[in-house]
């Protein structure tokens, strides 16, 4: 199809381009500029070149934040997908009991992050919490789930998994129900076991769904803020200072717009790289993004 005038496509795209330019690219450019300045929002910004990036690199803080965020994402994505898929397979049955279980598991997803975080702070109290009581009852040692820097990140990630597993389960359930029953019947007629049916029939059909769940879980995990803000405020000893929280901390608590902007630029680059890798993976399989 040829446009009547060369300007027509641009005119059609103009509203979208304008919105993108105004709300995405312009803020990005301003952030990139601010990352090269020392600025506290009150005094005049001072040009410092790459000093903010240098300060973040010095002592390895940037790499630690990146490592923590990636580690958190791995736990959240793998955990949510595994539990979501497992639960979907288990509760993909008729009956009120299974409907109740599906509703119960999904209910965590519709509760706000703040409520979930507050609930788990209470449950995980190493002395008075319900989880600690269970640990004591079975003779396990006392664990400072949120006070021990070695345990805090995994704990917060597990809470995130608990929160979004219901969502993963519902999406997997939809995927499972979209698989024609005739395929399973054919597999059964061919003498395939339950595992063989899942491995060679169900899973290949679920791959687009799995890619969708992985992508959305990844986005959720990279955006994690509320759960950190409520449960640990980035501590103990920065063990849960993830990327978005680190940006918030720099700009709003430490009054350093320059360092916060430098972090935001790095975050943008990391997300762009991840998006590119994901697109490439899809294209190499000849598939389309879900």
């Amino acid at each position, binding site marked *: 199809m040829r446009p009547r005038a060369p300007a027509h496509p641009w005119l059609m795209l103009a509203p979208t381009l304008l919105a993108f330019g105004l709300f995405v690219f312009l803020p990005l450019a301003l952030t990139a500029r601010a990352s090269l300045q020392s600025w506290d929002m*009150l*005094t005049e910004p001072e040009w410092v070149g790459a000093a903010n990036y240098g300060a973040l690199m010095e002592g390895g803080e940037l790499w630690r934040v990146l490592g923590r965020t990636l580690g958190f994402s791995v736990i959240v994505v793998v955990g949510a997908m595994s539990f979501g898929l497992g639960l979907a397979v288990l509760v993909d049955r008729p009956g009120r009991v299974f409907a109740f279980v599906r509703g119960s598991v999904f209910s965590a997803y519709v509760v706000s992050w703040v409520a979930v975080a507050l609930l788990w702070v209470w449950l995980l109290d190493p002395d008075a919490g319900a989880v600690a009581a269970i640990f004591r009852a079975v003779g396990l040692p006392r664990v400072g789930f949120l006070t021990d820097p070695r345990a805090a990140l995994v704990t917060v990630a597990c809470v995130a998994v608990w929160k979004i597993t219901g969502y993963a389960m519902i999406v997997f359930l939809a995927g499972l129900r979209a698989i024609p029953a005739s395929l399973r019947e054919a597999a059964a007629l061919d003498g395939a076991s339950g595992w063989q049916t899942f491995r060679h029939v169900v899973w290949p059909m679920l791959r687009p769904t799995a890619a969708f769940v992985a992508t959305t879980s990844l986005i959720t995990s990279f955006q994690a803020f509320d759960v950190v803000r409520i449960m640990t405020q980035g501590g103990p*000893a920065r063990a849960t200072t993830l990327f978005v929280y680190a940006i918030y901390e720099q700009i709003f608590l430490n009054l350093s717009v320059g360092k916060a902007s430098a972090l935001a630029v790095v975050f943008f680059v990391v997300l762009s790289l991840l998006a590119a890798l994901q697109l490439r993976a899809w294209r190499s399989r000849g598939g389309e993004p879900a």
Partner: protein
Amino acid sequence: MLGEAGCRRAERDSQGRVRLRLWHSLGGRPRAALLEIVRRFHEREPGVRVEAVYQGDYFEALAKLRTAVAAGAAPALSHVVAEVLPYLARANALEPLGGYDGLGELDLVPALAQSGAFRGGAERPLYAVPLNRSTPLMYCNGALLREAGLAPPETWDELASHAKALTRSGSRWGFEVPIAWWFWVAMVGQAGGAVFDAEGRATLGGDAGAEAIAFWQRLIHRDRVMRPPPGRDYDAWNVTNQDFLSGRAAMIWTSTAFLRYLEDNAKFPVVAAPLPAKVKRSVPTGGTLFVVMRAAPAIEREAAAKFLRFFCETDQVTLLSQRTGYLPITRAAVARMEGEGFFASHANDAIAQRQLADVEPWPWEPKLFRIQRDIVNPRLEQAVLLDRDARGLLDEARRAAARPS
């Protein structure tokens, strides 16, 4: 012109009263006391309407205040922690108050006012009037102390031995304090150091800074008698208070601000004591000071000055202090509370009041807040919770503090 009129904020309400915007961070009893003072002010000054709006904890409120200043929408009146005052003054965000009728001559308790809470504070223009001022204070569970035959500890060694005697594995910690700048600064002073030297360099206490961290490390990791509360900032403070009230911590350090709250909610006698000494006693001041924002309209700044004068009258000062545990900020209020026998009947308040003799002033250093938040606090947590080399981390912190922000 229409746009300008539409964007400009209304300085008066529909009844012609001056709107005085007050952003505050007070919750619970201090908020109730502030709102009572606002109510009284409205009776005295019917031409001014104070619009008191809660803006989150001190640090959240500061973030909002800073953003509002940058956006040209700052309230006329707010309050900030002492550590941020030099930074805001340097940024030219604060209105000097000395020229306002009566504000330069307030009879304030020096240790709690700009003049004595900062080194050289009296030589600078008056930027702040104390609102809710406090120091760290030790609170002991009187029943447990009596049961163990102990008196409140007076030295670090006694604190460690008392904590050991009062700890019951799995059910009670001998001692609890948030791993935070304020308490570390107190311990640096007690160990004979200072966070800044006389020339304004961030020495972070030198050996005393490391000694303070090592003491915490010993109590947590070697003696296992101290609980570092989870969370940061006021979340950790809240946990500390709740652990004390529920009997899970026998001795805590927290602010004098919680004196009345802890006394009223504890099911045991609360025994306050000065913070113990290493080589001497020392405490920093805490709480906040009122500031008037330079960018606010003149009519609102005038109204703010009126409110501050009213706030510093003895009736208001005693109200806030007696209802909360914040220290009375004027000498007249102290005299009245003494005269009326308040300190005689409130031994814990008297101890908090006496501890003012141990106050170490803050340096007037614009980088102070950044050093607290960005440089010291995270390293304190690392050193204490991960049991890392305190000297190495403080060396790193000193290097970071020496860099331009």
